[in-house]
């Protein structure tokens, strides 16, 4: 018996036989009694299967199934649905997505600028090391607020008052014929003493007291005295030069910027 003809019988049972195939099958069935018997037996088999009634499970099966399931798996979402999503649900609306994306971009920009650049918002005091370098190379990042020379008997000197951002410093260059004591008197509410940088090392000694910076010099003194200024740009600063316990020079070089 040809496999092709058997396939046609199955296709007929499944209702997918074409008219030409059906014609071919019927012609063969008329000629071949074995093929006809096979067709009848297969159709009977299919018919018997159709007669099988559905089975009823035990009435407790549904309950057994429900009891066997762990419903906690998704149960926690009930609470979220009930109050959290009601409270915050509007936040996730599509219309807010562009705003979130913009805000996220801005935050990233600020973070990057903080990391890569000096913060545009910070009011951090500049490091002294930066200031020293600025002064040392004598560039013009700073402003000279005041400058005067001293020409007295036995004392020659040059004093400059410079300012850079929140720092102010006096540069003192003196040549004396005897040991001297140089005093810088300042107002602690306006200035705070930060550093002293002797340029001729070993010839000057520093002492500080409240509102006072004292420098003892042999005969040559070249140094910087640095203060940090308050927000108020007025800072009283007075220079005294003492020799043998007597004040030989006084100059108030307070200045309002």
């Amino acid at each position, binding site marked *: 018996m040809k496999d092709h003809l058997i396939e046609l019988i199955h296709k007929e049972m499944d209702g997918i036989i074409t008219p030409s195939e059906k014609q071919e099958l019927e012609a063969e069935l008329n000629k071949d009694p074995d093929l006809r018997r096979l067709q009848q037996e297969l159709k009977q088999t299919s018919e018997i299967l159709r007669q099988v009634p559905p089975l009823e499970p035990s009435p407790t099966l549904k309950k057994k199934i429900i009891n066997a399931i762990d*419903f906690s798996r998704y149960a926690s979402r009930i609470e979220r649905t009930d109050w959290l999503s009601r409270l915050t649900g509007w936040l996730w609306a599509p219309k807010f997505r562009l705003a979130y994306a913009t805000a996220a971009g801005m935050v990233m920009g600020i973070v990057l600028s903080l990391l890569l650049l000096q913060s545009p918002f910070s009011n951090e005091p500049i490091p002294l090391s930066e200031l020293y370098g600025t002064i040392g190379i004598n560039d013009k990042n700073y402003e000279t607020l005041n400058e005067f020379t001293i020409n007295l008997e036995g004392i020659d000197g040059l004093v400059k008052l410079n300012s850079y951002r929140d720092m102010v410093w006096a540069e003192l260059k003196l040549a004396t014929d005897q040991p001297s004591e140089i005093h810088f008197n300042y107002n602690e509410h306006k200035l705070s003493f930060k550093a002293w940088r002797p340029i001729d090392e070993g010839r000057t000694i520093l002492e500080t007291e409240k509102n006072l910076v004292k420098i003892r010099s042999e005969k040559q003194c070249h140094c910087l005295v640095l203060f940090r200024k308050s927000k108020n740009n007025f800072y009283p600063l007075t220079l005294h030069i003492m020799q043998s316990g007597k004040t030989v020079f006084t100059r108030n070089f307070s200045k309002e910027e």
Partner: protein
Amino acid sequence: MKEMDDRQQVQECLKGSKNAFEQLVEKYHKVIFNLAYRMAGQSDDAEDITQTVFIKTYDKLESYDPTYQFYSWLYRIAVNESLNFLKARRKYKNLDPDMFTGEKNPEECCLDNELGSRIQAAIMELEPRYRILILLNHFRSCSYNEIAQTLDIPEKTVKSRLYTARQLLKDIFIKKGTI
């Protein structure tokens, strides 16, 4: 509309609604039980399979793709679970042949009727790979394509196996005098 309802029920389940899943169990547990019974041949086993099917379905609910019919997805899980059960039973049967005598419990006897029991006995003589095709085609009226998707085999294989299954079953019926 019916399928829309199923999909909505699934969404409710995923939101934590126990009641929604209970309704799906109510709707489909008999169909799944019948499949399991035709495959396993014993009601106790069929109930165990049905229970496992729904537990797995619930666990996998998040992976359900709503573009497909929920029933088809559920039925596929049931077919796989039944085949897995038969594989496992074959292993145990080899270890202890007395475990599976084919005796029916009283409840099962109530389910039986003369024709039904003879047909079930004949179906049980088929290898599982043929048995499942008879179930899907003759009991569920699935098309070749649906069977191919359910069993994850080519449509060509479905046809050849189905034809073989019918002929084997026909021979069994003849042998038992059913036809």
